[in-house]
C-alpha cells in the first residue's frame, strides 16, 4: 500500500516539472509581455528595449523559466493587468468562494447520489427504480445551463427564496452574519449543481449494483446460505462503491476548479468565472497562474484517486 503511494508521488515530480515548462512556454507564446498595458504611448522603442533587457526578457528561455520558478516559490505569480493586484491575492479570494460552493455541492451530490444509486440497483425495475430512472433521464437530457437558469428564475426571482448573484451580502459585517449570508448564497447553485451531478453517480452505481448482483461471487455467497440483506451489505455494497470511490478522488479537483456554468449563471465570484473573465480581458498573468494551478490540481486528483483505489481494492496494490 505505502509502496504504491510512494511510487505514485515520485512519478508526480517529473509530471509537475514538465507541466510547468509547458505552461511557461505557452505563456511566452502568448502575445504581449509583462509591460503590456503599463507602458504609455510615448515610451520610445529604445526605452522599451531597455526595460525588457532589465527584466531579463532577452535571456535564453531556460534562464527565464528558472527565474519564473524561483518567483513561483516565493509566492510571486505577477500582477494582474485587469485588477492591478497580485495574482496570488486574487486567486486566494476566489478560491475561498469556489471552495464554499464546491464543497457544499459535492457533499450534497454524494449524499443524494449514493443512496439513490444503491436503492435503484437493489430494487431494479420496481417502482422506486423507475422513478429514479425517469429523474436521471430527464435531468440528463436537459442542458445544465437550462436547469441553472430555470432554477435561478423560479427560486431566485419568482419565489425570491434565494439571492441571485454574488457570494456574500455586502451588508453582512459580523462573522456569524457573513457565514450565514455565504450559506444563503450557495444553497441554490449548490442544490442545482448537485441535482445535475447526482445523475452520473446514480446511473453508474445502479449498473454496478446490478452487475454485482448477477456476479458469480454473489452466487457463491448465496450458496453459502448468506441471507439476502447480508449479501448486499458484505458483498455487493463495497464492490459497487469501488469505482465511485475512485471517481470521488478525481472530482476533488473540481472543488477548486470551480464550475464555469454555475458561477456564470449566478454571477458567483469563483475560480471558474475568474478564468473566463481573464481570458476575455487577455489577463495573461492570471491565465498562466490558473492553467498551472488546474494542471497541478488534476495531477493531485489522479493521485488521490489512485490512493483511494489502492486502499479499497487489493488488486491494484503493488507488491
Amino acid at each position, binding site marked *: 500500500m505505502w509502496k504504491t503511494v510512494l511510487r505514485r508521488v515520485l512519478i508526480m515530480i517529473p509530471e509537475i516539472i514538465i507541466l510547468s515548462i509547458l505552461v511557461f512556454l505557452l505563456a511566452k507564446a502568448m502575445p504581449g509581455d509583462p509591460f503590456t498595458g503599463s507602458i504609455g504611448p510615448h515610451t520610445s522603442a529604445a526605452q522599451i528595449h531597455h526595460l525588457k533587457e532589465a527584466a531579463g526578457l532577452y535571456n535564453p528561455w531556460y534562464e527565464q523559466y528558472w527565474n519564473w520558478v524561483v518567483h513561483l516559490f516565493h509566492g510571486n505569480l505577477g500582477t494582474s493587468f485587469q485588477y492591478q493586484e497580485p495574482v496570488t491575492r486574487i486567486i486566494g479570494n476566489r478560491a475561498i468562494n469556489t471552495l464554499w460552493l464546491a464543497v457544499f455541492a459535492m457533499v450534497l451530490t454524494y449524499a443524494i447520489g449514493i443512496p439513490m444509486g444503491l436503492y435503484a440497483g437493489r430494487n431494479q425495475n420496481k417502482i422506486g427504480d423507475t422513478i429514479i430512472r425517469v429523474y436521471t433521464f430527464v435531468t440528463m437530457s436537459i442542458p445544465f445551463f437550462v436547469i441553472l437558469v430555470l432554477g435561478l428564475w423560479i427560486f431566485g426571482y419568482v419565489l425570491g427564496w434565494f439571492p441571485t448573484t454574488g457570494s456574500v451580502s455586502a451588508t453582512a459585517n459580523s462573522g456569524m452574519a457573513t457565514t450565514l449570508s455565504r450559506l444563503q448564497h450557495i444553497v441554490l447553485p449548490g442544490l442545482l449543481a448537485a441535482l445535475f451531478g447526482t445523475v452520473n453517480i446514480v446511473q453508474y452505481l445502479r449498473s454496478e449494483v446490478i452487475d454485482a448482483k448477477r*456476479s*458469480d*461471487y454473489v*452466487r*457463491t*455467497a*448465496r*450458496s*453459502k*446460505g*448468506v*441471507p*439476502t440483506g447480508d449479501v448486499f451489505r*458484505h*458483498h455487493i455494497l*463495497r*464492490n459497487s462503491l*469501488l469505482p465511485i470511490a475512485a471517481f470521488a478522488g478525481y472530482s476533488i479537483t473540481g472543488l477548486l476548479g470551480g464550475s464555469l456554468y454555475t458561477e456564470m449563471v449566478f454571477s458567483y465570484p469563483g475560480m471558474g468565472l475568474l478564468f473566463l473573465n481573464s481570458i476575455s480581458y487577455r489577463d495573461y498573468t492570471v491565465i498562466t497562474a490558473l492553467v498551472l494551478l488546474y494542471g497541478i490540481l488534476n495531477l493531485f486528483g489522479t493521485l488521490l484517486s489512485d490512493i483511494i483505489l489502492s486502499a*479499497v*481494492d*487489493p*488488486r491494484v496494490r503493488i507488491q
Partner: protein
Amino acid sequence: MADEENHFLKIEDVSTAFKIQGKYYPAVSDVSLDIHNDEIVAIVGESGCGKSTLATTIMGLHDPAETKIGGKIEFEGQDLLTLNEDQMNKIRGAKIGMIFQDPLSALNPLKRIGDQIQEGLDYHTKMTESEKKARVLELVNQVGIPHPERVIRQFPHELSGGMRQRVVIAIAIACKPDLMIADEPTTALDVTIQAQILDLLKDIQKENHAGIILITHDLGVVAETADEVAVMYAGQVVEKGSAKQIFDNPLHPYTRSLLRSMPQKDSENDDLYVIEGSVPSLQKMPQDGCKFAPRIPWVPASEHEAHPTMHEVEPGHRVRCTCYKNFKFQDEA
C-alpha cells in the same frame, strides 16, 4: 439396487423455465434423478443442455420473478421447492455445498480467502471466533493448499487457478454438507491439476460420506469418478444408468455421439467425430418430439416417438425415445 429409504435427494419431474421477453422457455424439463450418499452422480452434456440450471434449481438460486420452477426436489424428507428463502438459507452451505466453475469470478475479489471460507461457518455454526479460525486452517489444509497461514490472509488474485479452485472447494465443504454439487469443477484447470482436484473431491466424499452431483461435459472426468451417469440434452435426461452401463453399452444416439467425439488413443483415424449443429437456444427449442432429432437428420421420423419417454432397457439403465433401437451413424449406414 439401493432401497427407497436411501434416496436422500430425489428429483422428480423438475422443470425450470426462464422468462425471456415476457414468455417462459424451459431450460430444464421433467428431469428425475436420485442421488444417494457415498455416490457420485455425473450429469453430462454439451454447453446449454441445462446442467447448470438444474444445479442452481436444486440450490434455489434463481430469481423467482424471472423463473418458473415445477416438480419436486425431495431432500432429507422435505421438498426444497416449497421452502422459503430463510429456510433455504439454513440448507444452502450447511447441508448442500456448491462448487462453482471459474474459481476466479466465483470468489469475491475484495475479500481475504480466510474470510470467504469462514463466512459459511458464521451462519451455520455456533463456533467461537478462534474455533472458526482453526476450522478454516484445517479446511485449507484439507484441500491441499500449502502455507495455509499465509494463504488465508491473501486475496483471490494472488493465487493460481488450481489454488483458487481448492479455495472454492474449501468453501463448499466448510460445514460438511451431505450433498455437494460440483458444477464443472475442473473445466478452468489444466489436466494435471484436474486430476488432483478430482482425487480431492473423491477423498472428501469418502471422508464426509457425502453425495456428489458432478456436472461436466468431459466424459473422461465422468469415467474416472462417477458411479451413476445421467446424460442431458436440451433440458432433458436422455439416458441414465451406472457408469459401467453407460460406457459399456451406450444406447441413446446422443450418448453414442458424445462418446464417439472423444479422442481415443487406439484410434487409427485422427479426425474426431463431430455432432452436426448445436444445442438449440431456449427460444428455438423443439417443444415436442425427440429433441435430438434435428441433429441426426438421416434417421427417419418413424424411428422417433411422438412424445418420447424413458424406457428401461435393463435394471437401472433408462433411455429416452425409441430412436436408439436401430440407430446407426451416418458412415455406418
